């Protein structure tokens, strides 16, 4: 095995040089009259500010190594991701359900899988070491979020479009689960697709970000690849769990105990 070779430290000047590329883009936008220069510069500034801030938070978190602080940060991340899921749906469940289903299933799936990884393959000391727990949780959350939001968006869109077919089944004496089956299956398939695609294309079409990062940081490729494989498995598990529970809870909420389709609960 190749030993760790260390990594090249970056200075703020290095970042400024790279930032010139964005300025160049903005210049091009100006030259071609795209009207994107303001948004582009703002987005770049926002990205840099957010990430620098996160860097400080992570540094503080790593220095204190507190279970409660780690849990709090994870919770805040999940709450933001819940909002993101909601924003990506064209039609959503009315009231708190719309936000609640996305946020809670994601928190659940992310937590279960992260805890599994921390207690099984990784075993840091202490077990909640934020240096492992937070980045892991963040990557799992981000991917589960994409799956859940796609799955829910597909479900709520399709349930409106397929209303006549669903109600026809209910009228013939089908239960709500039988009548919603086709729609739920399609929503699940949509939710699982990005995760399947990223597993199928990893290493061939693109080099996954985490692995690339580790290699740049001087980790031997063999180890970096193992980490990446572990992470993809964890993501697959969390996405599966999250999408399945989010879609099934939504199906339950979109119907009632008299086996009626309740589109009035959407808005």
């Amino acid at each position, binding site marked *: 095995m190749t030993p760790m070779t260390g990594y090249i430290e970056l200075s703020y000047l290095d970042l400024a040089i790279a930032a010139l590329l964005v300025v160049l883009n903005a210049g091009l936008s100006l030259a071609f009259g795209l009207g994107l220069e303001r948004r582009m510069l703002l987005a770049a500034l926002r990205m840099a500010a957010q990430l620098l801030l996160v860097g400080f938070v992570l540094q503080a978190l790593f220095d204190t190594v507190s279970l409660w602080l780690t849990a709090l940060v994870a919770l805040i991340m999940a709450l933001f991701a819940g909002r993101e899921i909601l924003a990506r749906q064209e039609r959503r469940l009315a009231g708190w359900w719309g936000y609640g289903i996305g946020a809670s299933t994601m928190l659940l799936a992310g937590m279960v899988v992260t805890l599994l990884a921390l207690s099984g393959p990784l075993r840091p000391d202490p077990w909640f070491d934020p240096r492992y727990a937070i980045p892991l949780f963040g990557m799992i959350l981000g991917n589960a979020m994409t799956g859940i939001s796609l799955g829910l968006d597909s479900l709520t869109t399709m349930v409106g479009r397929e209303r006549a077919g669903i109600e026809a089944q209910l009228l013939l004496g089908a239960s709500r689960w039988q009548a919603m089956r*086709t729609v739920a299956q399609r929503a699940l398939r949509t939710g699982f697709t990005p995760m399947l695609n990223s597993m199928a294309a990893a290493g061939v079409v693109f080099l996954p970000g985490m692995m690339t990062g580790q290699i740049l940081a001087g980790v031997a490729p063999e180890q970096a690849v193992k980490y990446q494989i572990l992470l993809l498995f964890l993501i697959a598990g969390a996405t599966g769990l999250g999408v399945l529970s989010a879609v099934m809870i939504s199906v339950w909420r979109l119907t009632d105990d008299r086996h*009626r389709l309740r589109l009035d609960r959407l808005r």
Partner: protein
Amino acid sequence: MLQVENLQRPDDLPSGQYVLGPISFRIERGECLALTGTSGAGKSLLLRALVDLDPNRGEVTLGGVPRAEVPAITWRRRVAYFPAEPGWWLDHVGDHIPDRPGACEILAQLGFADPDDVMSWPISRLSSGERQRIALARGLSCDMPGAPKVLLLDEPTSALDTDSCALVEALLQRHLDKGAAILLVSHDPAQVARLAQRSLHMVGGKLVGTA
């Protein structure tokens, strides 16, 4: 047979979604009751409420048994609703029909020369008249022993030619003779005169008169 007391929209549903009732009436065994009214008068809403497809409140009893005591799935097999535009969820006719022999028998009565062949027809190529008749066969066959006791029919012949229309009416008459009750929405006064003994008229979600 079917008794309806103060059927109406529940209070807890966001207002403005639909207006219905309170509505009270009854249909006897072997009776066909016509339901008339302009489009938007609430006829389909009433049928949907009777079959418990929309939230509603009020007393509905079938043969003396309150609807609340009957599971929704069983209720819809006894009180069958046929919407004006039937729904489909798979690609071919046969995918939608659990009881093929029963449905084929009815399709033959409704003028399909080769009912077995109909099963392989794609839904997307059906005419609206074919859809109506196939949906009727599908619903009437899905619970063969003891067939539905009450039929709620929303313009069952709106897309049919005179001959097919006569076949559907003959089929409905046979169900009436066997003791079924029918609530028939129809815009055709001649059909109402042929099939129904009484009629109800709806305006703005309420019953305004009987004849």
